[in-house]
């Protein structure tokens, strides 16, 4: 291997690829990254065999080659190197890093032992989406995925592609969030898949701030998310592949109630503060009570626990419907409210033991649903 690369690009590539590297007792090679130079492209990849990440960028390569190195050795070294150009080469099996006064060789494992990351072959279904819009939307639902291994189908985020838009939903069976995106122009692909939570989180973290579009390639068992920088000169290409979760996602539309007993319009920030104040006294069960009184036009938030004491706060609200007392895990309410940007929120309650729906007032692309605690 003989390549002249930009230090900042290499640093970024390592930082991103490293996210997929995993500690594995059976396959130690997985904690490393594969660094390869081929035809003026340098590529850094890593995988934990669930997801695979590849970051490729342009560089001057004189001789192709591959090494497998521990990112914890190369990354700190790049921090101290001052110049932006570094020369990568081979010394025996190892990687040689040269920059001005530095001459470092880093131990490499056998590159033949590194897993081959399955890339899309070109025959998959493809969809183009706006990178930032997708990741932003995804970030509003990814936190609600289920954690239990026992129900794998809800341990990921459901993506439903329709001609005009995309729906993303997640639930852990206690609450549910759904985000709807509308495409500017129609696209041909229609279908759905369940993306594992880890892949969804990485997607948001890595692609969240990138401008431009992202291409999703879908096969029945795998999804590949590919981003190519609009600035052709840098030649940056980032790809995340992930297995998909098999199974049928619960028909969550059925649980969204159609009739509501009580509806409230309330300031989102004030309500959040009140819940947080009450949460101090909620005790181990995280239980807070809401008393909704249409006559007094107020919402009373109370919480108490033997260890901490008792708390009660009143909040003026626009209330329609019946008087109601209902208890929630406060975290579930705050989690939902935090995903909204609107000034006011609308809360709708079907019954004391039925789901409650929280909507951002004036926006109709987000829905959050939480189950109460049995009184």
């Amino acid at each position, binding site marked *: 291997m003989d390549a002249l690369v930009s230090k900042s690009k290499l640093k970024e590539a390592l930082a991103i690829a490293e996210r997929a590297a995993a500690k594995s007792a*059976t*396959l130690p090679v997985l904690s490393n990254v594969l660094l390869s130079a081929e035809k003026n492209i340098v590529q850094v990849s890593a995988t934990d065999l669930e997801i695979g990440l590849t970051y490729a960028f342009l560089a001057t390569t004189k001789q192709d080659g591959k090494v497998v190195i521990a990112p914890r050795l190369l990354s700190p070294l790049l921090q101290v190197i001052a110049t932006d150009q570094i020369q990568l080469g081979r010394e025996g099996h190892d990687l040689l890093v040269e920059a001005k006064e530095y001459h470092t060789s880093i131990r490499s494992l056998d590159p033949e032992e590194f897993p081959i990351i399955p890339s899309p072959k070109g025959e998959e279904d493809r969809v183009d989406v706006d990178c930032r819009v997708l990741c932003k939307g995804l970030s509003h639902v990814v936190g609600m995925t289920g954690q239990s291994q*026992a129900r794998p189908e809800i341990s990921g985020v459901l993506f439903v592609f329709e001609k005009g838009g995309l729906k993303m939903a997640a639930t852990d069976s206690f609450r549910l969030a759904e985000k709807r995106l509308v495409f500017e122009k129609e696209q041909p692909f229609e279908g759905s898949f369940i993306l594992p939570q880890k892949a969804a989180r990485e997607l948001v973290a890595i692609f969240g701030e990138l401008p431009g579009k992202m291409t999703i390639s879908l096969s029945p068992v795998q999804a590949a998310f590919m981003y190519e920088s609009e600035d052709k000169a840098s030649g940056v290409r980032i790809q995340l592949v992930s297995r998909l979760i*098999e199974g049928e996602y619960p028909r*969550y539309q059925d649980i969204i109630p159609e009739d509501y007993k009580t509806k409230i319009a309330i300031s989102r920030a004030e309500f959040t503060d009140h819940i947080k104040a009450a949460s101090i006294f909620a005790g181990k069960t995280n239980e807070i009570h809401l008393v909704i009184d249409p006559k007094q036009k107020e919402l009373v938030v109370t919480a108490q626990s033997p260890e901490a004491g008792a708390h009660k706060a009143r909040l003026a609200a626009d209330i329609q419907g019946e008087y109601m007392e209902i208890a929630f*895990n406060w975290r579930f309410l705050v989690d939902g409210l935090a995903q909204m940007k609107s000034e006011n929120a609308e809360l709708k309650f079907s019954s004391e033991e039925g789901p409650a729906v929280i909507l951002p007032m004036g926006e109709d692309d987000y829905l959050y649903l939480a189950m109460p605690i049995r009184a």
Partner: protein
Amino acid sequence: MDKDDLWRAVLAQLQFQISPANFATWLKNTYIVSRKDGQLVVSVPNNFSREWLENKYNKAIFHILRAIDHDIKEVKYTVERAAQSATKQAPQKQTISIRAMENSSGQLDLREARIDRATNLNPRYTFESFVVGPFNELAHAASLAIVKEPGTIYNPFFIYGGVGLGKTHLLQAVGNQITKDFPDKKIRYMTSERFTSEVVAAIRNHSVDNFRGLYRDLDILIIDDIQFLAGKEKTQEELFHTFNALYEKGHQIIFSSDRPPKSIPALEERLRSRFEGGMIADVSAPDFETRLAILKTKIQNRSLTIDDDVCEYLASNIQRNIRELEGALNRLFAFYRLNHKAPSLTEAKSLLKSVIQTPSKQISSKKVIQLVAEFYDMQEKDLIAASRKKEIVRPRQVAMYIMREELKHSYPLIGKKFGGKDHTTAIYACEKIQKEVQESEILADEINIIKQRMYSG
């Protein structure tokens, strides 16, 4: 050499050529799916394994295969969606325990949202969606009669039958129909597990009186899977008193179980006799036509189109269990959602391979002998030995009968398996047991339990 043996031979040789870590990582859960005209298709669990095998081990694998069988010309690797879900059935129990823990804090979850909290009934189960065939006619007719006049004709009503044949459906349909027709009647549907935990909670919280009050106030009590009460004496006692209180007032009581009351072990005699006092109906396995009808109904409910030949393939291959039938359909449905087209017969076959193929191959005559010996609490070798003691002869005849009925072995082969007995002995045994099965319910149940263990283990 069959597919499984062939692959085992390959793995056996391959393990010496690659490191144990690699072997464990890349060859775990691989198997041969099909073999046709020299082309071998190997199933791997994920794309990573596929890439690795295709690029790294293909040569080695191919060499070993060629050495064993010259006809093999090509090896292909495929990731099967179905491969994973087959192993997923095991964690079922776990789900229940986790949910029970979560629910102890009172946090309600979405899954129960559709279930009516007062009655515990799931509105999904109705008479309209229940397919009637000769195997469940009696139970269905009795249920309908109960719905018309709860508490008067068949009280208590006891349904029994194997796993996944529609007992719960029928029970819940009765409940739902009564809720509709008599909205003021108080109904409660319970699983016996939940009933038990309520009894335990009542004792712990010193609220037994409340508990009794709650149940004795009901107009209709439905308890599912009553066989799990076996050995739980305090719960049986509470049920006994509840039963008496309800029965005296002429309120309807409905039970289900996987076996008739007589065969539920460790059930108190007074409860048993009460169960038998009303109407007992059984549901058995559906015939082909009914299975087809069930499939069609389910397909219609989901507004899905699936070819007739695919339906027939499903109905003829999944015979024992309607739930399995539904599971298979779910898989096809998932395929449909992903690809937006109905699966063809070949696609359906490959999708359903793991569901359909597994059960038949596991049962051998050896397994039958082992299970029968275990059931009658004796040594396997006694069964095979030449003894004519009565306590040995009977189980031996049962084993012969099961081999004939379930494994379709020939009489001479059966004779051979039992220490070289004559085929006429086997014929005599099978005929004798067949006759007795019709006369004695106890024997029929014994055989049913052995069969269940045979197919479930």
